[in-house]
C-alpha cells in the first residue's frame, strides 16, 4: 500500500516542488497529487481490468496496490445516480415507477448504507476466517464490481426508448446481464482478495448476510440505548429544573 501511494505520488512531484515557492500553486499541486493517486489513469485502467479480467484485476488490487477507495466511492455514487436515472428515464413501456416517489438522495444514501454494511459485514466475517483482504480491499472490490450495472442501467434506459410492449425482454435481458455480471464480479472479488476457494467464498457470503443483520440489530440497539441514556439525563435535568 505504501508502495502504491509512492508510485501514485511520483507522477506530479515536480509540481509539488515548484509549488513550495508559490502558496496557491502548492495547494493546486497537492490536490492534483491526491487526485491522481485516487483517480489516475493507472487506477482507472485497473478498474476496467477488473471488469474484463476479474481474477487478475482483483489480485492486482489486493497485492499490487492498484485499488482506490475514493474511486470505489465514486463508482457507488455513479451507480446510485444511474439507478435513479433508470427509474426516471426508462420508457413508459417498461417503467411502472411513479416519478413522484423517486428521491435520488434517499436512494443514494440507501445504496451507500447497504454497500457499507456489506463491506463491514464481510470484513467482520473474513477477519475470523483467515481472509487476507483488508477492509479497504473489500470496499474497493465492492465498488468496482458495480461497473457492469452502471453501464447496463444506462444502456437499458436507452434501449427502452426504442421498444414497444412485447419487446420488454430486451430491456430485462440487459438489466439481468448487468446484475449477473456484477454478482459474478463480487463473488470473484471476495474470493480473490481473501484468497479463498469458491466454496469458502459462498459460505462467507452467507455468513456476511447474517453479519449484516447482526450489525443492523446492534446499531438499532445502540441507538435505543443512547436514546435511553439521553432521556435519563434529560429527566434528571427536568427534575432539577423544577426543584430549583
Amino acid at each position, binding site marked *: 500500500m505504501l508502495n502504491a501511494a509512492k508510485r501514485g505520488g511520483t507522477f506530479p512531484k515536480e509540481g509539488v516542488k515548484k509549488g513550495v515557492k508559490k502558496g496557491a500553486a502548492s495547494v493546486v499541486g497537492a490536490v492534483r497529487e491526491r487526485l491522481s493517486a485516487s483517480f489516475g489513469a493507472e487506477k482507472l485502467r485497473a478498474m476496467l481490468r477488473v471488469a474484463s479480467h476479474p481474477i487478475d484485476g482483483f489480485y492486482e488490487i489486493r497485492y499490487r496496490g492498484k485499488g482506490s477507495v475514493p474511486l470505489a466511492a465514486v463508482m457507488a455514487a455513479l451507480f446510485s445516480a444511474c439507478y435513479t436515472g433508470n427509474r426516471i428515464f426508462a420508457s*413508459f*413501456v417498461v417503467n411502472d415507477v*411513479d416519478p413522484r416517489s423517486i428521491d435520488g438522495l434517499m436512494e443514494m444514501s440507501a445504496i451507500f448504507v447497504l454497500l457499507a454494511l456489506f463491506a463491514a459485514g464481510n470484513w467482520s466475517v473474513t477477519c475470523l476466517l483467515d481472509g487476507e483482504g483488508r477492509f479497504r480491499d473489500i470496499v474497493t472490490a465492492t465498488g468496482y464490481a458495480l461497473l457492469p450495472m452502471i453501464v447496463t442501467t444506462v444502456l437499458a434506459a436507452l434501449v427502452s426508448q*426504442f421498444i*414497444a*410492449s*412485447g419487446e420488454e425482454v430486451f430491456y430485462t435481458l440487459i438489466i439481468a446481464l448487468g446484475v449477473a455480471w456484477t454478482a459474478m464480479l463480487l463473488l470473484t472479488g471476495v474470493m480473490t482478495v481473501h484468497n479463498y476457494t469458491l466454496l469458502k467464498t459462498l459460505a462467507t457470503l452467507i455468513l456476511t448476510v447474517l453479519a449484516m443483520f447482526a450489525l443492523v440489530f446492534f446499531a438499532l440497539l445502540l441507538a435505543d440505548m443512547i436514546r435511553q441514556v439521553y432521556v435519563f439525563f434529560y429527566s434528571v435535568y427536568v427534575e432539577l429544573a423544577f426543584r430549583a
Partner: protein
Amino acid sequence: MSNSRRLVAIISVVAVMLTQVSAFADASPYQSYTYDYRRNVVLTPAPYLPGTIVNGASLGIAPLSQPRDIAASDDGRLFIADTGNNRVVVTNATMTRAETIITEFDNNGVTDRFSAPAGLALSDSGELYVADSKNRRIVVLDPDLRGVVKIFENPSHDALPDDFVFTPLRVAVDYADRVYVVAQNMFQGIMVFEPDGAFTGFFGTINVTVSLWQRFWRAIASKQERANTRLFVPTEFTGLDVDPYGFVYASNMDPLGVKAVRRLNPKGEDVAIAGVSNNLGGDIAGVESGSYSGVSRIVDVAYQGRGIYSLLDSQRGRIFTYDREGDLLYVFGGLGGVAGTFRSPAAIEYAKAADGSQRLLALDYVRGDITVFEPTAYGALINEAVGLRFDGDETQAVDKWRDVLRLNENLELANVGIGKAYLTAGDNKTAMRYLKLGMNRQYYSIAFKRYRNEILKDNLGWILTAAVSLAMIIAVIRAIKRRKSGGADETGLMSDA
C-alpha cells in the same frame, strides 16, 4: 356591539376559508373523486348533485317505514317497497304525489296482503314483481296493480334442503320474463325461475376462496380447533339488476373488496371485465383508517344503460359507477345528516328523466326517503362519452372527452378516450401523448409501434445508404491498411523464422 362585529368578521373569514377549501365550486355535500392508475384518490367535480327528496310527507302519505327497495318505470313512476308498512307505494310520473298505495290485491278472487315486501322489479310489459319476503313468495301483479298474474312459491329442487324456507329479498326479471331471486341464507347463488313458475336452479354461484395461509392453519389445526373456526361459506348476493340484453348484474359484499359485482350471462358465467385497476369492489382497500375504514359493503347495483352500472356502498354511503370495460368513472355520495347524504343506504335505481338524462334514485331505509340525484354537466358528459364509445362512435366521443378534460384535466379516462381516437385517425404521435397521460400502456405501445414504423419507413432510405457507404469506406480503408502493413507483417514473420 363590538362583539357582534367580531362575530361577523369571524364568519366572513371562515366563509372565505371554506370557499377556498372546496376546489370545485359546487354546492356538493360530499367529495367526488376517482382513482388514478396509481390508486391515488383524485378529486373531481361532482358528477351528480342531490335534487329533490321523496318521502312520505312529500308524497302526502304516512311516513315510509324501513323501505327496502325501489323500482322506476319508463313513464317516470316510482315504486317503493314500504317494507315496514307492508305496502307498495306508487308515485305519479313526477314523483310528487302517491298515485297508488297497494296494501291489498286480488289473488284469484281472494283479497290478499303483503308481509314485509322487500324487493321490487318491473318487467318490460309493466308487470310488478314483488318479493313478498315474510309470505315466502314472489307476487306478480298486472300492470293495473290490482290483480295477481302469478305467484312463485314453494320452490322444490334436489339441490334445496328439505327444511328450506324461501325468504326472497331481491328480485329481477329479464326480457323473457325469467325471474332471478336473491333469497335469505341462500349461499348457492341466485335462484332462477322460469316464466311458468318452475324453479330451475342456481345461477352465478360465488366460489369460496381459501388462501394458502388459511389452508396451512387448517392443516395443522386439531379437529377441535377446526370445529371452532369460522366456516368458509360464500358471501350472499345483495342486489340485482338486469340489462336490456338479458345480462344479470349481481352485487355482493366481498370481504377482500376487489370483486363486488358480477355480470352474468344467460349460462350464469361471470363476464364482468375489471379495468386497469383490476378492481370492481368500490373503494380500493386500505385508503382510510379508523371507524370509517374497511372495504366497501356493496348492497345494490343499478344498470344505467350503454354498459354503465353503479354500485352502492353502505359502509361509507358512496356510489361507484363503472363502464363496461370496468373502468371506474366517478364516485360520489357519503354518510351524513344533510340532504344528499345517507344514514343507511339500501337501494339504488336509475330513472330516465323527461329531458332524457339519467337520474339516480337512492333509498335510505332508516330515514325512509329517496334522494333524487341529477347529473351535472360533468357527469352527463362522461356518461355520454362512455355511451358513444359503447355505441362504437369514437369520433363523436372525442368531442365529449375534450369537454370533460376542460372540466377535469386530470381524468385519465378522458385522455385515453382522446388517445384512442387519435390512434384510429392515424395520428400516432399525438395518440402517444394522450395515452401516456392516461397511463394506458397497452394502447400507448400500439401507438408507439406504429410511430416507430412510420419513422423507419420515412428514413430507411438514407439510413441504409449511409450504412452501406460507411461499410464500403471502412472496407477500403482496411484494404489500404492491409496493403501497407501487409509487407511489414510478412517481414515480421520472416524475421521470426
